[in-house]
């Protein structure tokens, strides 16, 4: 009994508690439909923030393309779900879609990693930034349809597909994919979040994780003791991309229309995810979850302030940033923490 619960266990407990509270409120009908609609998005942003934190916090490489990994995960899983909509029950279809989304995102992470992770410096940031934009633009220009003759693809227009009248569009250029079955719900999202947390926290505490962190802390020292730099960098980055892919699957399965627009998968979104990670604490996995959830919910919950909401939101961002990083705030926090520790510590020992 004396064994203290470590931080990662606390994270799981808090996540499950939040889920339980939400479920009880939902059953009791005390949850507004506005808030119910926000639960899944808040969770998938939390998941992608966990993914990015592995890359930024554990691996120490900056990625500005995590929205791109979300995007490929979202589109690939969405295509699968639409194709299998009438053929498989949801209990089989969604897990398969999830696996496909994760696999495709991981594959892209791997492909990008091959050239870039051999280099040192900020190249990954540049390449991932480009990757996110390229993926978005390709998907925006892609027309994909299916008819009795098979698949048709074009980069010019719907007309250029030359489909039969019985054909259906799968990806309709800028209109994207519509009609994805809405398989994701809050419970599923929380389960995926828990899995992502489990993967992330176990990675950190494993032999591989320590190797990855040694690269972050001192590459030359790590290399000198025989750590395979490229291998471990790749491992961290692919896991990070895969988790972002899982978030993408939730994204596409929680809303019926999916478009590769800038407002969903542009670099601004990648930076938004980075903001979640930075404000939650770089390398602090549970902090990412919290920051993503709070910062996603905040502008929505401020709707009552109508036009002022974005102003308040940005002020909150600045305030959180100062609270986290300003020296004065950190000193104050340390002081408060110390005094709390004293009082709490005494009580517990008594």
């Amino acid at each position: 009994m004396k064994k203290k619960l470590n931080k990662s266990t606390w994270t799981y407990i808090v996540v499950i508690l939040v889920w339980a509270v939400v479920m009880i409120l939902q059953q009791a009908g005390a949850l507004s439909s506005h808030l119910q609609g926000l639960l899944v998005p808040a969770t998938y942003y939390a998941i992608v923030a966990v993914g990015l934190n592995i890359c930024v916090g554990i691996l120490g490489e900056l990625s500005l393309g995590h929205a791109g990994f979300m995007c490929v995960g979202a589109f690939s899983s969405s295509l699968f779900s639409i194709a299998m909509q009438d053929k498989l029950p949801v209990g089989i279809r969604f897990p398969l879609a999830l696996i496909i989304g994760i696999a495709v995102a991981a594959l892209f992470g791997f492909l990008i990693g091959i050239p870039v992770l051999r280099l040192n410096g900020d190249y990954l940031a540049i390449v991932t930034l480009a990757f996110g934009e390229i993926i978005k633009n390709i998907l925006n220009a892609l027309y994909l349809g299916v008819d009795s003759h098979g698949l048709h693809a074009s980069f010019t227009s719907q007309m250029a597909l030359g489909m039969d009248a019985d054909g259906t569009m799968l990806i309709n250029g800028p209109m994207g994919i519509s009609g994805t079955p809405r398989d994701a719900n809050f419970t599923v999202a929380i389960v995926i979040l828990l899995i992502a947390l489990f993967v992330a926290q176990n990675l950190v505490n494993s032999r591989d994780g320590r190797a990855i962190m040694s690269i972050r802390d001192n590459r030359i020292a790590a290399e000198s003791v025989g750590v395979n730099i490229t291998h471990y960098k790749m491992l961290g980055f692919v896991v990070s991309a895969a988790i972002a892919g899982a978030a993408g699957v939730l994204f596409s399965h929680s809303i019926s229309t999916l478009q590769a627009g800038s407002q969903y998968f542009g670099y601004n979104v990648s930076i938004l995810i980075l903001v979640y990670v930075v404000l939650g604490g770089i390398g602090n996995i549970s902090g990412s979850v919290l920051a993503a959830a709070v910062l996603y919910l905040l502008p929505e919950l401020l709707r009552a302030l109508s036009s002022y909401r974005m102003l308040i939101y940005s002020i909150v961002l600045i305030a959180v940033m100062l609270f986290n990083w300003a020296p004065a705030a950190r000193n104050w926090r340390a002081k408060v923490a110390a005094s709390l520790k004293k009082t709490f510590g005494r009580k517990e020992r008594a």
Partner: protein
Amino acid sequence: MKRWNKIMSSMLAASVAAMALAGCGSSSGSSTTATSSAAAATEAAASTTEAASSDTAASGETFKIGVIGPLTGGAAQYGTGVANAAKIAVDEINADGGINGYQVELQSEDDALDNQQSVNCYNTLKDWGMQFLLGSVTSACSIAVSEETHNDNMFQLTPSGSAVDCVKYDNAFRVCFSDPNQGTKSAQYIGEHKLATNVAIIYDSSDVYSSGITNTFVTEAANQGLNIVSQTAFTADSKTDFSSQVQQAKDAGADLVFLPIYYTEAALILQQANSIDYHPTFFGCDGLDGILSVENFDTSLAEGVMLLTPFAADASDELTQKFVKAYKDAYGDTPNQFAADAYDGVYAIKAAAEKANVTPDMSVSDICDAMKTAMTEISISGLTGDPITWTADGEPEKEPKAVVIKDGAYVSAD
């Protein structure tokens, strides 16, 4: 440090839970637009006593219309136009005794041109007790929201969602023309009025609206004997420099440039065409509406630009003049076509609600079922068409009008 984290995480978890609970209460009726004063007073009382309840039946004696649109960001002109015009229409209706004797309340929510946010807005409005949805203003958002309204069987009338899929469900109707319709009508108009033979198109390939119109325009142009000499695209990420597209149109010898795009980009295209001394006829669709109010834009460049839109603010009929005056008095701005669509939309809701004889105590789903049939039976004389009727598949039937910009104002072309 571990303990600090523990404390921190439990505190924040508690605050998240508190925010969640607070969210329920604050979502009802805080930014409600005031209706006629008496009704507003009773409603205010009602919304405080029933703040926690999201039950529509409980809100009782008023009809509630919700508006969703981009009130901030790049497309804000559309959203605010719709919200403002809907407000004018609702105020008029309330002053006139309301719908079936019940006063009408209006609430507008901002979706910032984002699908997910649009759905969030819809949920917010649903909590507020909305019975009719006027929105979303833009196509993609409208499609996303229509999935929700279809699930809830909520009556949806989009003022300006022009993509085909916006009205694919039987509970959804629209006021504006659909994209294919606009492309076809534009090509027909150019062909019939012999405006040009060589046509260049500059469109936004990343935009649903723009590429939708382009597709049908190209198809119909062939029938009208129009020569498409240049078809160049840009995307949402590269919409500041159009010199290469404009140069291509010029080199191809186009005497008309078709711009099925929004006004912000069109303003830049006009400037850049002028700087290379290229002066063809510019022809656009309803997205160009609003070009005269772009900041820092030399409106003399827009002289002679034609656009196919169902509404011209200078029209001489009494209804338009009354609306434009009311809009100018209230907001100090000339209303655009989106505003006109919204105004007609509110009156269409009124006409259908009266035809179906619905009352606010009916459930959302019952109202929707009654409205679905009534919409196909009404005929309103509105700003954007006289008469406007609706088919069961949600499309309006009305005549398009072409507008030309003359001396810095929109003037009917005919």
